[in-house]
């Protein structure tokens, strides 16, 4: 199990946070693949929640910042990532229409797992490394705070059966969850903080 360690928001590197989420998503996929029945369904709900939260955080904060700081308005790099995310969302939508445990579900899950892994690795190599180098430290810190706010909606230490309080969130529609995440990230102003400030 991952151990929680206390770090203040000032210390935290947003790229570190995102990479840790990528690792967690990889683990969650393995969990869904290797379980069955009720346990598998519950693991799948945690996975889709994590994916939704993580991708929303990236769309709201990370990719806009990348567009601004990458050299020569290298929008193509970010567009490529968004295209990958759209593909993944489509696959996730299809998965939600299938019953966990049936062969079609597992096959599509595998496709999604690889697509998500490739996407994560591309982000790390092409986007995050540049962000770390080129964005101002203050920018990176506020991005970290926004991503952390989103994280509150996703499982960081998944334990089966511990989620009574958030049971409603588990099975709820992803769209509603995404809205809540966006609200949390935007704060009271309702605006995404300008990454340049």
């Amino acid at each position, binding site marked *: 199990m991952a*151990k929680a360690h206390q770090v203040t928001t000032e210390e935290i590197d947003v790229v570190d946070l995102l990479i840790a989420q990528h690792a967690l998503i990889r683990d969650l996929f393995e969990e869904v693949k290797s379980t069955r029945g009720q346990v598998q369904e519950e693991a799948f709900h945690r996975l889709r929640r994590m994916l939704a939260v993580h991708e929303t955080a990236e769309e709201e904060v990370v990719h806009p910042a990348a567009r601004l700081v990458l050299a020569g308005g290298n929008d193509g790099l970010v567009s490529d990532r968004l295209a990958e995310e759209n593909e993944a969302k489509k696959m996730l939508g299809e998965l939600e229409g299938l019953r966990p445990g049936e062969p079609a579900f597992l096959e599509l899950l595998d496709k999604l797992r690889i697509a998500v892994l490739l996407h994560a690795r591309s982000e790390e190599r092409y986007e995050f490394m540049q962000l770390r180098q080129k964005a101002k430290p203050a920018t990176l810190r506020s991005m970290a705070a926004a991503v952390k706010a989103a994280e509150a909606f996703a499982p960081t230490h998944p334990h089966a059966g511990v989620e009574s309080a958030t049971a409603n969130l588990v099975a709820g529609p992803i769209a509603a969850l995404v809205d809540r995440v966006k609200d949390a990230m935007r704060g009271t102003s309702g605006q995404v903080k300008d990454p340049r400030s």
Partner: protein
Amino acid sequence: MTFNPLAEKGIPLDRQIRNWRELDVTPVDPDDTDPYTKCRIITMNGIEVEAALFSHHFNRICTDREVKEQLARTRYIEQQQQKAVNWLLPGTASVLETTISYEQVAVDLTGWVARNEPDPYLRQAYEFGVLEDFDHLYRYANLYEMIEHRKAEKIVDQLTEVMPGRPTTVEHRDPVDNLRNPYDRSTTAPISKLHALTLVASEQQTMNFYMTTGNMYMEPIARQLYQEIGLIEEEHVTHYESLMDPGETWWERLVIHEYNECYLYYSFFQQESDPKVKTVWELHLNMELEHLRIAAELMRRHDRREPEEVVGRELPQALTFEPNKAFLRELLATQMDLTTLGAGYVREQHERFQRMQEQIHGGEKAPTERVIDMHREKFGEDYRIETEGKHPDPRLRQEAGTR
């Protein structure tokens, strides 16, 4: 094994060239693959790289055009084989993820070879080296958790333990103390020659890998770690390489190379759990049989000797990837304090050793020490996979943490 590669027929050389479609192999799954499948891939990549480099060296000193043409044809195929093998690894792995698999290879390949080496002097050389690779695995694993937020267990599974070996910081020796005595080619068992070549190829590829990719990290501690461990790999290549009889002719070395490739592809074909990878081992074995036939003919013609004199009449027992935990623990309990002096081993930190230590460390802690300190600071303790109990050396037991 009753399989005699020298008596088998392979694919004719001119039918061995593959087109782009055929070379475009499907990589293994990044998450679901048996770690030992990845280890076999990494091993054969090292073997094929050595095949190409050896052939290039031979080409540089060969004055016979006909022979050079033969070498060039075979070398091109070895290069295609190298790509078909190495490209079985998926592009999703980070440099560090691949590095950890490389060190798992070093540990479990050297471990098995040591256990099966009949010559005591050669066996001691392998036992000496494996404790050092074992430590490298531990250092890289701690770096991995820190900067990639993932546990090395996801890569090595429970097959290989992860804990301190002979500390890398004391592995830095005077260069002359990495030269061992060579075996005698006329009295040494064929298996010993194959073992030495396999480990030279493996350490050479590891050395090359760190030389080339170690600068691809931005974190200072990562860059420094690769420089430090990269320098040890140079020591290991010298150490294993010096075991080979320098009196071996180019022809017999060519035969040993091709024979070893047959041996390893045959061994891995026997054990391979992944069906797609297994077909690659089978295809390549059938290619190597022809390379061996060509090498044997060259040896008969130019050396006026039969290849069986050098490599024997039948393959040794299959080289196998399997856990070596008990063997390693025995070494950890008894050989941690060894260093080298000349061609032999001692337990004292002699003057030449101390001088080197002073020069390389410059009064500071080595990166391999600092990476553990950093991990402890962040997580409360170092990262380990100790499946068989506490560390055999009481000095290296994990400090009480909050795990």
